């Protein structure tokens, strides 16, 4: 076994070169380079967790904004409903008033017109009596030659008109 057979001549060389090479590995690579590699990895981990925290905070803000939006939406909907109901009530009231005024106006107009019609028909009836009395006197004079009095003719016409 060369490990034992050669130990006397080789142990110093083995130890020396192992210390030299492992010293290089430890001081140059282990102490010089590994902390930098590790720092890069740590910085990345920190960045990732920081970004995740930011995203989480943004999510929370978005949720908050949405809740806020919902509340305001509901509020403005309620306000709009109230405004609409009020406007409807006001419009109904206004049209009622207008309708009542128009009804009164129309009723008075109708009353006046009816009065006028009644007067006109009375006048027309009076006219018909006079004309009929004249016609009756004329007819009496022609038939019997008696000159009927104006009053008698008028009474006869009245009676005839009353009986239809």
């Amino acid at each position, binding site marked *: *076994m*060369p*490990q034992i057979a*050669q*130990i006397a*001549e*080789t*142990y*110093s*060389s*083995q*130890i*020396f*070169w*192992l*210390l*030299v*090479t*492992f010293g*290089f*590995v*430890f001081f*140059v*690579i*282990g*102490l010089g*380079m*590994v*902390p*930098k*590699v*590790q720092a*890069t*990895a740590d*910085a*990345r981990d920190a*960045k990732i967790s920081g970004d995740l925290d930011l995203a989480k905070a943004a999510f929370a803000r978005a949720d908050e904004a949405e809740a806020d939006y919902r509340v305001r939406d509901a509020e403005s909907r309620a306000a709009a409903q109230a405004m609409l109901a009020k406007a409807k009530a006001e419009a109904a009231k206004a049209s009622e008033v207008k309708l009542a005024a128009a009804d009164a106006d129309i009723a008075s107009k109708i009353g006046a017109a009816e009065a006028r019609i009644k007067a006109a028909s009375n006048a027309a009836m009076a006219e018909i009596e006079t004309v009929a009395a004249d016609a009756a006197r004329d007819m009496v004079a022609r038939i019997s030659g008696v000159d009927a009095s104006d009053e008698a003719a008028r009474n006869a016409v009245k009676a005839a008109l009353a009986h239809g």
Partner: protein
Amino acid sequence: MLQGSSVAESGKIDPMHQFAIEPLFGTDHLSLGGFNIAFTNSALYMVAAAVVLWIFVVGGMKRQLVPGRWQMAVEYMTGFIKSLLIANVGEGGKKYIPYVFSLFMFILLANLLGLLPLGLIGLHPFTFTSHFTATGVLAIMSFSIVLAVGFYKHGLHFFSLFVPHGTPALMVVPLFFIELVSFMVRPFSLGLRLFVAMTAGHVLLKVLAGFVINSANASPALGFTVGAASFVLMIGISALEVLVAVIQAYVFALLTSVYINDAENLH
């Protein structure tokens, strides 16, 4: 045994030869303070592991917020070590990331580079984690960190690690010594586990490879039976060895962090 003796008789395939350390580039007698520090094939693979690791981590240094594949791979490895330390030591374990990462990746690359089929192009792969001189140094390093942290943070109170809570007064002294022994065995078990696992796997692969070559040389009939069966077995065991390479690196890093936990938090 028959197969084993035939391998020995042929004298061509020595499953232990892969562990032999050979100086390279004529540096046989390079020395420092009287100690030989020849640049060997073992040292070459240590340098290779360090360089490959350096290239791997440099590729992950782009520091982009949205990582590419390479950066992702490097960050996955550092993140893996980080979660290992946090799971075993807690938040205080983060400061050991550079050490445990270096340890894990260095051992992992040493194990994997030693498994590369470089023999196909005439090179000799070498696994320095199959030498207890190398794994021992790594184990002693981890154990020293545990001792240093333990005594620095807790002072002499660190010895209370050897006396679990609720120990009857009569048992304190014997238990202290039992716990002390189990504590002192840690660096040995840490270093030897890796060395044994790597050595055993490589020996097994070489022995099976020897079966394939020697049986094929002996006769076509043996080649198509014993040789083919050994070859199929080798494919499976090669895959198993890749798994072992990863698991042993993980075990080394895991046990180091478990021991660091004792030093950081006592009980």
